[in-house]
């Protein structure tokens, strides 16, 4: 159903433009205990996604996401390339062939992304990575939807959970990624990837009603 594809395009475009706009902010976040390239990597990668936008296959949402994943993998380096590429790849694979995507399908797809990231990164919730924002965010999305809230309100709930969880990572000690080298010195600042997830979810929540509801 084309309205599913529209929504997928809206979500990806929002992610892409938000990453491009936040290049400096994300980079500064990664400077605290990282190497400062996180914003640059995402911005260059999603810039390319936007450039290639019209050429992506649009058979269905899943196929579209797979093409986005390939574009990301071909341009984003660092840790983020494989991590974000895997996330889109898994979501795409999960949704491939589905015509009519419900919130439950999205939750399943995102859970698949999370599993992919864990495997790719040899990491888990609790290691102070973007997983620590993404996992609770997906849980919140599911709960809100199950409680009968509208899609827009469910996305809002997801954003709120992402923000809370992302901020909470500042109390954690990093056990994966570059920040883990800093040991105890990683405590006190939030994880760049987790905060990026919060920013993206918030942007989706803010702009959700500016478009046709699913």
């Amino acid at each position, binding site marked *: 159903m084309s309205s599913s594809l529209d929504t997928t395009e809206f979500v990806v475009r929002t992610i892409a433009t938000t990453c491009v706009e936040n290049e400096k902010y994300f980079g500064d976040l990664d400077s605290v205990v990282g190497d400062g390239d996180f914003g640059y990597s995402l911005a260059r990668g999603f810039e390319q996604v936007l450039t290639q936008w019209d050429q992506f296959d649009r058979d269905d949402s899943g196929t579209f996401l797979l093409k986005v994943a390939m574009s990301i993998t071909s341009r984003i380096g660092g*840790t983020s390339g*494989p991590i974000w590429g895997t996330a889109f790849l898994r979501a795409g694979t999960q949704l491939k062939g589905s015509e009519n995507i419900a919130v439950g399908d999205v939750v399943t797809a995102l859970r698949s992304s999370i599993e992919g990231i864990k495997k790719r990164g040899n990491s888990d919730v609790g290691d102070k990575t973007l997983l620590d924002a993404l996992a609770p965010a997906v849980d919140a999305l599911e709960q809100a939807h199950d409680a009968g809230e509208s899609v827009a309100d469910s996305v809002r709930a997801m954003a709120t959970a992402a923000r809370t969880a992302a901020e909470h990572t500042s109390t954690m000690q990093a056990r994966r990624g570059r920040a883990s080298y800093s040991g105890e010195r990683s405590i006190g600042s939030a994880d760049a990837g987790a905060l990026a997830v919060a920013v993206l979810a918030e942007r989706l929540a803010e702009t959700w009603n500016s478009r046709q509801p699913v």
Partner: protein
Amino acid sequence: MKKFINDPQQFVPEMLKGIALANPATLVYVPKYNLIHRADSPRDDKVTIIQGSGSGHEPAHVMTVGKGMLDAACPGDIFAAPPMDYVYETTKLLASPKGVLLLVNNYTGDRMAFDMAQEMSEADGVKVKTLFINDDVSVEDSTYTVGRRGVAGNFFVMKAVGAAAETGAELDELIRIGEKVNSVTRTMGIALTACTPPSKGSPLFDLADDEIEIGVGIHGEPGRRRAKWMPANEIIDELLGAVVPDLPFASGDRVALMINGLGGTPISELYILYGIAHERLAAQGITVGRNYVGEYCTSLDMAGASLTLVRLDDEIEQLLEAPAEVAVRIF
């Protein structure tokens, strides 16, 4: 930020183009994959050696492509591991029937890109093995970290396998040699200033005028601890105090000693450090058999240095002695 650049986004491509223009007979540049490779690679009678890693560590690794060293380097952006595609395409393009050896400094992003590329290349029927380098003693290796980082000591692994590959050694033999060299190589670095990534435009972290960072990474990651500036003698005590007991190096050992500049430190200061380290080691009964003073693996414009020790045996020493012709020419 004052640098010799046009556009931060063109930093890496313009640098690679410069390297290619300076070495028209020996090097080929493939802009699409940030790829610099030897003009005479791949060869049927030689394992192809490829190293990736982020940019900003020059001369590592794009300027160490050449006879007796690397066949190719496909760096990512500044401090970012190459996209998996670059590694995969490079591997495909330069595959030799004798195989491909991927040299990877042990970082999360690099590991993932090279793992994925290896899997994909193997699916294409290419014989590929990967060797991880992790010489940095400043990071503890535990299940709660991603393990030690690969830093300036990667030079010795690269040099040894490069020399062996030139003589026709098989892929498994190169793995054996590389792992052996890596296992006897230890490094630690100290930063006097932070580096400034071109796209960020300001220093990556703040170091006060009288502060130094002990155990710093080559991406400006914080190290073991921050300390007050100290004289060169004490700096060497800090570095040797961490590096020597780690292997441990012991009286009677013959070693290679590298004092590596991190990009903004003049070679005069590196030789001051060298002289102190040489004498301190001699006092411990450790003989410096080979020495390396200069820039091998930098962190953009960071003022700082690292100290690497390699325990030598006849095999390693011969491989380090073998001639190499690399793209970076100093004299």
